């Protein structure tokens, strides 16, 4: 059996203070705190590349997990849509070089946004099982500061930079249940890179409506597939799109407030890193956790994490 052994994280120390930007976007403090939710955004240093953030997350993993030997790593996956340079070579190959991983180690990128962690968790576990691998690293790092228009009200107050790395091994603390996925490619233009400016543009209403209508049913379907109900779940680690979307999903799911936390106030929506950041912070003491990501694509995915010693 393989599963999640440990999670390393990296959040850049530099912050963009949204409280100082309220007048620029004609929003008040109440709206910022109770609706957007992001009081400040973590912003990487201009010289830091996506691969550098991944390596910093790996440094944190090493501190948390003393039995990692780089020569034992069989594969690495980097989930990003903001790779080093123009994406060629793939960022996972650059991380591979920077970490000094063995030539026997497989490395590839996954191009997904906010659903990326859940998808990539399924991908790396399937890849490892198919090939008899024992240790793999799943990186998430999508530094949107590369593509944000700082004058765009729809996106500029939301996104922050971060990276995580999840160690998948035969000594798991968490194993995954059945996954459920979905795509609405026809609505994909709701979150995209603008052709001329090469900056992110988002139809806020479109993304909100999609999330509020699709995700509650999707999560309940996934729970049913795993023979669970929301009462069995200790924590809903939902993608931290904004405080408003997390609150809306909680209300529509009919789940207690303390089970559906919002934790991104100080660093922002970190895309595919938001769920592993939450797990790193909040998973201890929990037995069953729903993880659910949704966004770019439009794409969504969810599963349940089971604490290994509690069994399904």
């Amino acid at each position: 059996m393989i599963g999640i052994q440990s999670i390393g994280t990296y959040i850049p120390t530099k912050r963009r203070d949204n409280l100082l930007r309220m007048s620029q976007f004609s929003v008040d403090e109440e709206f910022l705190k109770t609706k957007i939710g992001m009081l400040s955004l973590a912003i990487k240093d201009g010289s830091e590349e996506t691969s550098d953030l991944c390596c910093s997350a790996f440094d944190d993993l090493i501190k948390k997990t003393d039995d990692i030997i780089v020569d034992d790593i069989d594969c690495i996956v980097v989930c990003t849509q903001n790779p080093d340079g123009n994406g060629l070579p793939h960022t996972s190959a650059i991380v591979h070089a920077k970490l000094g991983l063995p030539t026997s180690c497989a490395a590839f990128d996954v191009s997904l946004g906010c659903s990326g962690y859940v998808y990539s968790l399924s991908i790396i576990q399937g890849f490892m099982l198919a090939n008899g691998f024992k240790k793999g690293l799943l990186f998430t790092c999508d530094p949107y500061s590369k593509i944000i228009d700082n004058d765009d009200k729809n996106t500029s107050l939301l996104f922050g930079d971060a990276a995580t790395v999840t160690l998948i091994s035969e000594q798991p603390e968490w194993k995954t249940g059945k996954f459920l996925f979905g795509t609405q490619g026809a609505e994909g233009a709701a979150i995209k890179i603008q052709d001329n400016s090469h900056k992110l543009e988002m139809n806020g209403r479109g993304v909100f409506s999609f999330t509020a209508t699709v995700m509650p049913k999707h999560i309940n379907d996934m729970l049913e597939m795993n023979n669970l109900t929301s009462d069995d779940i200790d924590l809903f680690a939902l993608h931290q799109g904004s405080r408003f979307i997390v609150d809306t999903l909680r209300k529509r799911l009919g789940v207690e407030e303390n089970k559906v936390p919002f934790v991104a106030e100080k660093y922002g929506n970190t895309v595919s890193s938001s769920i592993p950041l939450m797990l790193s912070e909040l998973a201890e003491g929990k037995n069953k956790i729903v993880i659910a990501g949704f966004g770019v694509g439009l794409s969504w995915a969810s599963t349940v994490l089971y604490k290994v010693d509690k069994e399904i």
Partner: protein
Amino acid sequence: MNVKYEDVLDVLINSGVSADVEGLAHDASLKDAGVDSLDISNFFLCLEEKFEIEIADEDIDLLDTIDAIVSYIKKL
């Protein structure tokens, strides 16, 4: 579609807007009443679900009063 002021106001209140909208006048601006952009998105989603309609993005800015919304839905 047969829809009244009370039906739309009921959806507005039940959508959970932060602003106090009890008894909001027929022709009062939602924006001026303090209904913010995110609550507006949620309100229009609730209207779509309640009346099984679709409200186009380009129409949203024109629908700033309950009367305007009632007229809009009646024409669908």
